């Protein structure tokens, strides 16, 4: 039963990916601007012959449908093509950047869930207390403030006024030859500001969500029973209540993953984080079609995978769902 469910979910996922590929291809061509002009412009100006040879080389002079067919065919055989701008395989460019993006997104996800849920639980303990009010205000602000603004403010505060964190990048170039341990510390040092920036917006949502969810659960009969049995406050909160309140959090976490990736695009740009988001951003400006489509392909794959994993973990967490299609 679970196996057939899994196969069906993966099948849907693949179909979705194919749709994403076609849609991306068409959308990107709607943007004005000719990649050949960009490439020639980057080279320092060009003649008509050069523009023509660039179009020829990248197949830009073929009809759109033919280009789409070639592209889909290539993707199906695992070939994402070469970047117009860098003349390197898109797969290589993405391989250089996918780990930094995963590191950033996963760290932000973990931070936002851990801190958000913790704050939510604390707030739910006394729904009318100071902490609860703080969480509500913080959640509203965190949700409302644009992520790039938070990033810039954190840079000004912690990289310029009080320079305890590096202003940009993932690694200090001067530590390239240092030992592994120092390098890991260095990456963590660079990771803190961007991960927090990205986490803040979702952290606020998790705090609100878990506060509401906990309040609901804390009113149930079995909590009263636990209290009557003399269980400690901590045990009631974290053992009895949180486990049941966690289901909606889990659902939202899966759904948020896609948003996190798009948020990462902005955060990577602000912090010069060497991930896929920045590659996407730069490629759009350069009309580097194969690179944009390659990044979107991987980003949508990550979202599809995250959603499948969420579905599965949901089934693991809630026995009532097992056996349902």
């Amino acid at each position, binding site marked *: 039963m679970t196996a057939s469910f899994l196969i069906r979910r993966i099948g849907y996922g693949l179909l979705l990916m194919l749709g994403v590929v076609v849609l991306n291809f068409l959308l990107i061509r709607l943007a*004005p*601007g*000719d*990649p050949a*002009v*960009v*490439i*020639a*412009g*980057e*080279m*320092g*100006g*060009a*003649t*008509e012959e050069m*523009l023509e*040879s660039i179009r020829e*080389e990248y197949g830009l002079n073929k009809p759109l449908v033919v280009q789409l067919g070639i592209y889909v065919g290539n993707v199906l055989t695992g070939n994402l093509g070469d*970047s117009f*701008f*860098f*003349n*390197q395989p898109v797969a290589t*460019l993405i391989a*250089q950047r996918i780990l930094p993006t995963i590191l950033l997104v996963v760290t932000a996800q973990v931070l936002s869930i851990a*801190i958000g849920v*913790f704050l939510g639980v604390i707030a739910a303990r006394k729904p009318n207390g100071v902490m609860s009010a703080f969480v509500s205000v913080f959640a509203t602000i965190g949700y409302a403030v644009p992520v790039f603004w938070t990033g810039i403010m954190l*840079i000004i505060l912690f*990289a*310029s006024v009080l*320079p*305890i*964190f*590096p*202003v*940009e*990048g993932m690694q*200090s*170039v*001067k*530590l*390239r030859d240092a030992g592994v341990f*120092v390098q890991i*510390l*260095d990456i*963590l*040092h660079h990771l*803190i500001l961007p991960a927090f920036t990205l986490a803040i917006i979702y952290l606020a949502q998790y705090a609100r969500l878990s506060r509401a969810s906990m309040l609901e659960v804390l009113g149930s009969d079995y909590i009263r029973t636990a209290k009557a049995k003399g269980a400690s406050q901590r045990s009631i909160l974290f053992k009895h209540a949180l486990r049941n309140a966690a289901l909606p959090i889990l659902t939202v976490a899966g759904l948020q993953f896609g948003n996190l990736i798009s948020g990462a695009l902005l955060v990577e*740009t*602000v*912090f*010069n984080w*060497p991930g896929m988001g*920045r*590659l996407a951003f*730069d490629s759009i*400006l*350069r*009309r580097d079609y194969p690179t944009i489509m390659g990044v979107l392909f991987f980003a949508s794959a990550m979202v599809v995978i995250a959603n499948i994993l969420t579905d599965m973990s949901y089934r693991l967490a809630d026995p009532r769902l097992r056996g349902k299609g």
Partner: protein
Amino acid sequence: MKLMSRLFGAAAFAALSSTALPAFADGGTLVIASTQVPRHLNGAVQSGIATAVPSTQIFASPLRYDENWEPQPYLAKSWDVSEDGLTVTLNLVDNATFHDGEAVTSEDVAYSIMTTKANHPFKSMFAPVESIDTPDAQTVVINLSSPHPALLLALSPALAPVLPKHVFDDGQDIKSHPMNATPVGSGPFMLEEFKPGEAIVLKKNPNFFLEGRPKLDEIIVRIIKDPSALLIAMENGEADMYPFMAGSQEIRRLEKADHLTVTADGYAAVGPINWLAFNTASPKLSDVRVRQAIAYAVDRDFITKALHRGVSSPQRGPIIEGSPFFDASIPAYDTDLDKAKALMTEAGFADGMELTIDYIPGPKEQQQSIAEYMKSQLKKIGIDVTVRAAPDFPTWAGRVGGHDFELSMDIVFNWGDPVIGVHRTYLSNNIRQGVIWSNTQQYANDKVDSLLNAAAVEIDPEKRKALYSEFQQIVATDLPVYWINALPYHTAYDAKLQNVPTGIWGSMHPLDMVSWGE
């Protein structure tokens, strides 16, 4: 929470304290910060600062230039130009090798010049080169169809990298050759790592043919696209050198940092001119009096002194004012609103007109701010200007290249010799639809064509200068372009750095003498 913040704090400080490097006399790492992203590292088929800075470290070239525009030996230990100007002979050093150990020979030089001629966007650099003879491994004889005074400058590191023939000449298109990303040259530094859009790591070439050089062990070019992040990196010592810095705020801010030196030296050959181009084919702008009226209405001093905080300098003509060919006697169009209005009336536009101004997406103070200033200024002479922003470079390039514009602001480089960077804008045979940085003004003047063609082949420097003077007088009257200011390129660098290049090519020049002082 507490434990976590303590852990992070400890990690942060550990990493921070280990970034502080001791001072070196010889050796050490230089971190160059740049906002520009190179496509690849082969300057033979790609112009621009982004490629030229690393390319001039990786590749040596026949000549290099000092700060007085004088050629200096590099791969060529001596050179000779025949009396008729039709033959240039280069005598190469015999101890130069590529990073893979192969010797640099006359074959490599000949191959490189012919490849650059065929593929580099600056067609005029080597256009008169007919053939190249290589009588022996150290002698290169360049045969020209006509005298070509710009040739020696075109043999500079920024324009003529010497490629290893045995690596690149394999039948693949050189413009998209895979080795462009992992090139092998004979310059002072070897490529260790190229992460597109992120960083370029260069290591000292231990077999460099100039003894005792390079001084540094390593150069890292860090690409930081956000200028404010780059500034903080310079202030914090995360980066040591920031060449081609053009923002007045950036310049003024880094000047205040105690550990940094900021200089405007070293950009003479680049010749970056910020200008307003007129579409002379537009019925509204085809009358020279309208173009002159616009020139009289704009105040260059306001732009350079107020908008640019005094860091940029006014530019009156098509040739950069620091060039030996610049003619200071050309009309400057000092602001005169009455004269501007009179010219508009004479041209039949007493009731004014509407115009659109485009600008290349770039630094706001060089483009958008000036466009908006012009809008307010031109209103005073009855011209209602709409400022049309482009979301990105392709959009702007499509409009201007496609001649779908009226006024457009742009930054264009002189590239040392007028033949390379100036002629392209004014020659009538370079009006090419769809091609950016051609004669998009669609300006055609037979006299200008013949003057430029004569100057291109004139080997007597004085006569050549006279030809360019006449050219400048004519275009400064015809005004296909209104030149506004020279881009205020500056270099900021750690004050402990020695011998930072201040020659005509700035850091598009081998950094083999740069070292860390005490």
